[in-house]
């Protein structure tokens, strides 16, 4: 269902959604972050993409599973900490980030259904914004089966048309949100539709970067486990977690007990993000680390995204948001690496 919303009415709509927690990109200093909104007027939707993807809202940096406590008689009491039943809505999500959630869904619904992730997912309505304002210099969504107008993963997708928004309600979850302020939404005219389609076409042209013949890469990678390429390309890698922590599709995590002493009477079991780029990621208790050097870690990152994941879920585990390129401290460029892989040996 398509509708038209006047820009000036956006705050009114958001006001009507008071029963939800509202999230939207907010600018702090030079950077944009998804934050909780208390004043509807703060939702501007004129943002480039945020530094940290909205995955943090569904798969938070820190998730408390449960709390436990033992009493003097050594009885253990456990308090489950599943996410609350509070619905929330996120405005301004870019298509790459929404697609990313459809990929992490595959993982968290997979062999084991993760209640924490799924609960948050269920409680959250995703309102997207197509990328017709110029995209980032490192965006390459088109190369990885995405698009600046992709609907994947959204409940609602908006398109900025100067004084109005073209709004697509993509499912019930989305429509529920429209119900809140029916009268603000007008049915688009044919002209509106044309305009929107035009904007979408233009948007695709604005994507500057791409990887040709990316389709060949998964197959190519199969034979490259032992390739010296990984050494060459990772020599200047400093092994920080930026590329993976900013990645909307990376989903590795670590589980620890948070306690004050090594013989605790109470504590919390907590999930935090983890990354294959850290030395302790695959460290064995024997001290042996099968991914002891940068080369094997870069390989793991690329292989996981463009080989293992593809084999298992039929998608690249990358939506071309370009964050890992923009923020890499030493200019490692995943497109560059993939092209080298593609052309390797030929």
């Amino acid at each position, binding site marked *: 269902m398509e509708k038209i919303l006047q820009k000036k009415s956006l705050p009114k709509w958001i006001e009507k959604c008071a029963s939800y927690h509202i999230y939207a990109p907010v600018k702090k200093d030079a*950077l944009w972050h998804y934050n909780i909104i208390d004043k509807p007027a703060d939702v501007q939707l004129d943002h480039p993409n945020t*530094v940290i993807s909205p995955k943090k809202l569904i798969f938070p940096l820190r998730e408390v599973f449960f709390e436990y406590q033992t009493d003097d008689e050594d009885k253990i009491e456990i308090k489950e900490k599943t996410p609350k039943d509070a619905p929330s809505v996120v405005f301004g999500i870019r298509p790459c980030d929404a697609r990313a959630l459809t990929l992490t869904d595959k993982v968290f619904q997979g062999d084991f259904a993760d209640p924490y992730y799924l609960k948050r997912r269920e409680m959250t309505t995703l309102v997207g914004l197509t990328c017709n304002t110029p995209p980032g210099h490192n965006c390459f969504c088109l190369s990885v089966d995405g698009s600046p107008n992709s609907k994947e993963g959204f409940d609602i997708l908006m398109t900025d048309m100067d004084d109005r928004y073209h709004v697509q309600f993509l499912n019930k979850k989305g429509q529920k949100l429209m119900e809140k302020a029916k009268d603000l939404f007008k049915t688009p005219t044919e002209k509106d539709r044309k305009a929107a389609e035009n904007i979408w076409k233009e948007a695709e042209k604005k994507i500057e970067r791409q990887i040709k013949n990316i389709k060949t890469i998964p197959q190519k990678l199969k034979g490259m486990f032992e390739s010296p390429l990984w050494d060459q390309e990772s020599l*200047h890698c*400093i092994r920080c977690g930026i590329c993976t922590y900013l990645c909307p599709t990376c989903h590795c995590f670590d589980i*620890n007990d948070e*306690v004050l002493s090594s013989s605790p009477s109470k504590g919390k079991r907590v999930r935090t993000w983890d990354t294959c780029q850290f030395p302790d990621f695959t460290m064995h208790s024997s*001290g042996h680390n099968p991914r002891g050097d940068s080369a094997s870690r870069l390989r793991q990152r690329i292989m996981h995204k463009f080989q293992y994941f593809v084999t298992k879920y039929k998608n690249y585990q990358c939506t071309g948001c370009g964050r890992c390129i923009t923020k890499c*401290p030493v200019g*490692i460029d995943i497109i560059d690496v993939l092209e080298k892989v593609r052309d390797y040996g030929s």
Partner: protein
Amino acid sequence: MVNLEELKKDAKRILQDKKVKYVIGYRRGVDGYEAIPAFFKAPEECDDLVWDPTCIHNLVRFLRDEKVRKDREKEPDKRPVAIIAKGCDTRAINVLLQEQYISREDVFILGISCEETGVIDGKKLRKKIQGKKIKQIDFNGKDGFSVITEEGKTEVAAKDVMAQRCIECISNYPIDHDIFFGEKKKREPENPFDSLDSLQSMPNEKRWAFWKEHLEKCIRCYACRSVCPMCYCDECVVDTISFAVFADTPAEEKANKIKWLEKSPVSSENFVYHLVRAMHLAGRCIDCGECERVCPVDIPLRHLNKFLEKKAKELFDYQAGFDPEAPALISSFKEEDPEDFIR
């Protein structure tokens, strides 16, 4: 003015003569204007060598990897590694020498003077040209550059885009080198601790709010740690498991790894992490500003180290990285060290 051709020539020569294992330097990144760290193993590769104010990275950090690699090898190649080093970078080398982490024979220093311009802060530059796509930058001219974007040429003054740490720099040319490039002309900062004044003059609670707002953002990607030439510990307080684990390490020693702080990126733990790191770098940090540059969420980490640098100077008249023979800040004392803070 640094002569890039000279630099290339010398880099080629030392590789040709097998004097060095390889050269750690800079080449042009994919975006076409920013320099990125690069390793040159063959003379011909040196044609890609670049030097300009986008060469902001402190390459000394890569000596960590070299050392680890060397320790792993059965018969390590004893030749030195050549490294392109700015003034601040050579101070970092001095600290590593002072801590006997490397010895002078291990490095061949291609010292480069930053002269008038210092290096540029990418964030400042992008702001200056309103995020336009940069195609190329022409760095000729000692106090200004011309930036070519898709919308044409913009002239920017060096001082407008110079990294803050360069504005406060006290060593704009190498203090140690094997070959020197550029001129030894001192650029004295007006106030080497300029960026601290506003913070220090804040009332306590305001300063707390400042740090809380920033450190709450920390996602613990540890880029600050990974990029730092001084963070060469095999095992870090923030790591949840022990890395110094070997066949002969008893189980209890593994189990007894102290958890000083949690992995969770929450305020209290982030504070402890950055406090510990700051203390750990006291008298060692040479203000290359890399930690702050690489931080994906723009935490002004430099302030923490800079503050201790200032205190070390004020209280103990100590400056890191100028004398590899001198005793370290925390492994020395003077009888007249201040103690007015002690009851």
